[in-house]
């Protein structure tokens, strides 16, 4: 069931109706049924993995609940075994081909007759997300952040909660359960606000992300046929498309949860306004960054090895590097994991390490940059400098995408080489060379969509969005909503389903 389809709209409508018709104590049970129906709509057999992850994490957390606060050997063993069990099927299904392929490739250096045939496995829907939700829950109970849930069905409602299971956001049981199980009242205001946000999300998805897909795929899929300037345009367009697609999804699920009065966390904060790559990652897919910070960065940097490294570095290289070194050490784990989480491919590892190198070198050279800026009389607070930093960050992030979109490392380097060697600057005067197979109406509508999306982002960034929204007369508001619906209808051209979401593939 695609989230942007007529059937999903009907499903959401029935869920909302039943949710507010039943007793407040039973609302979560409606959600549980809705989650199961939603999951089963994608196929029956894969729910086994979801139930298994739920049972293992539920039982593991109950065992950890009985342990005291101190991290005893037994407590650590229970947590470790639980996490390994939760991860096992995910690792096999997501990384089996990658690990086996590389192992066979390595062995073939010594035994040339060896060959590898890929396993035809399919990663069950949302597995990367519910696996991380389950691990987060177990670790939080281990750390005594909140007690383990005694009712398996309630816990399973959280784990299988369809709005956050396909593409995130990554929720914490301790936070989400507060609004998920308290019993919520219907509110017309929430219904209107939620519907407006759902409409906005569908608009971003259908008017911006979907129509630009074919152009991006066409250029990046056959890059050798196009000039460097076209490839760069396609990479920039890919960044904008991914943002419209992913944040559009977030708007839809947040809007739906707003109607139900369930507090789903925000995943974006105007990422293209980031002035550094580090800041970008604090604005893009925020909950994934927080997950890695809480469950990878802190444990790695505060481990005995991390602390020893920090102490040694402080003695050897002074307080500044000493301060940063255990962080860099932990970041190595974070970006290895972030890269591999996005895909079982060397391209994603390189993509992760490019982010790591830029973030760490920016921190390491911060004093040099400050001195240079002072020498060149650059004012950090000036609009021109901020704009330059934003454009630079956008270009860097887009450049990294050469690796995340390429099928293999060879193709990524070849695409970069081709972009430089065959730039074809003269094409800049021919707009038709860029938006290849898009119809004129599609270009106009998508252009309006992009302008609208960035206008909202500018207003949000300057803190004026809420004020502008509340000052907007109802007639104008009705006109804007109607225009959005018309644009969506024009783009869908009578179809009752849009393309799948890009991030669901991770």
């Amino acid at each position: 069931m695609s989230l942007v389809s007529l059937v999903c709209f009907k499903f959401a409508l029935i869920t909302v109706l039943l949710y507010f018709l039943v007793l407040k104590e039973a609302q979560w049970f409606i959600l549980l049924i809705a989650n199961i129906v939603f999951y089963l709509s994608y196929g029956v057999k894969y729910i086994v993995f979801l139930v298994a992850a739920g049972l293992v994490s539920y039982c593991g957390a109950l065992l950890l609940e009985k342990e005291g606060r101190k991290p005893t050997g037994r407590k650590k063993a229970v947590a470790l075994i639980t996490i390994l069990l939760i991860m096992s099927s995910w690792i096999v299904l997501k990384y089996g081909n990658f690990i086996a392929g590389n192992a066979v490739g390595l062995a073939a250096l010594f035994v040339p007759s060896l060959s590898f045939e890929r396993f035809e496995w399919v990663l069950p829907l949302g597995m990367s997300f519910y696996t991380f939700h389950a691990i987060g829950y177990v670790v939080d109970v281990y750390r005594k952040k909140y007690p383990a849930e005694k009712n398996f069905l309630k816990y399973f409602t959280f784990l299988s909660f369809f709005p956050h299971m396909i593409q995130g956001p990554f929720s914490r049981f301790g936070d989400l359960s507060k609004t998920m199980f308290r019993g919520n009242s219907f509110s017309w205001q929430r219904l209107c606000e939620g519907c407006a946000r759902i409409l906005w999300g569908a608009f971003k998805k259908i008017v911006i992300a979907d129509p630009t897909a074919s152009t991006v795929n066409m250029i990046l899929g056959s890059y050798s046929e196009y000039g460097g300037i076209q490839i760069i345009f396609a990479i920039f367009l890919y960044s904008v498309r991914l943002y419209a697609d992913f944040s559009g999804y977030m708007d839809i699920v947040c809007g739906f949860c707003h109607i139900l009065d369930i507090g789903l966390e925000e995943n974006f904060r105007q990422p293209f306004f980031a002035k550094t790559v580090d800041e970008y990652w604090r604005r893009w897919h925020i909950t994934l960054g927080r997950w890695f910070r809480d469950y990878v960065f802190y444990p790695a940097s505060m481990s005995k090895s991390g602390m020893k490294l920090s102490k040694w570095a402080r003695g050897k290289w002074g307080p500044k590097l000493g301060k940063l070194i255990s962080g860099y050490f932990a970041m190595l784990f974070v970006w290895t994991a972030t890269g591999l989480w996005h895909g079982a491919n060397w391209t994603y590892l390189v993509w992760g390490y490019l982010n790591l190198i830029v973030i760490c070198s920016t921190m390491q050279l911060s004093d040099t940059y400050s001195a240079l800026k002072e020498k060149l009389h650059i004012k950090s607070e000036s609009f021109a400098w901020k704009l330059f930093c934003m454009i630079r960050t956008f270009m860097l992030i887009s450049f990294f995408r050469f690796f995340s979109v390429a099928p293999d490392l060879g193709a990524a380097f070849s695409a970069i080489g081709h972009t430089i060697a065959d730039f074809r600057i003269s094409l800049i005067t021919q707009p038709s060379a860029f938006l290849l197979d898009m119809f004129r109406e599609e270009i106009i509508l998508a252009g309006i969509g992009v302008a609208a999306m960035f206008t909202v982002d500018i207003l949000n960034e300057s803190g004026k969005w809420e004020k502008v929204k509340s000052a907007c007369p109802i007639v104008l508001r009705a006109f804007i909503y109607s225009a959005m619906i018309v644009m969506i209808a024009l783009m869908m051209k009578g179809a009752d389903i849009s393309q799948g979401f890009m991030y669901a593939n991770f």
Partner: protein
Amino acid sequence: MEELIEIMKGIRPDVDFETATDLIDGEILDSFDIISIVSEVNDAFGVEINVDDLLPENFNSAEALYELIQKLQAE
């Protein structure tokens, strides 16, 4: 307490640790600042702050962190 403030100021001279009460909630300290503070506090006070203690309520102010240190020293 003075020693703790000195340590924190050494890591983030731009922050007024005497009065700030939203160091985590207000996103004043980032993750690198936190691990630096933990590393120096562990050495200076002979305690072992572990990852389970990384709660906003323990790091939102110098006073809260000092209370955590005293609690760990008493254990």
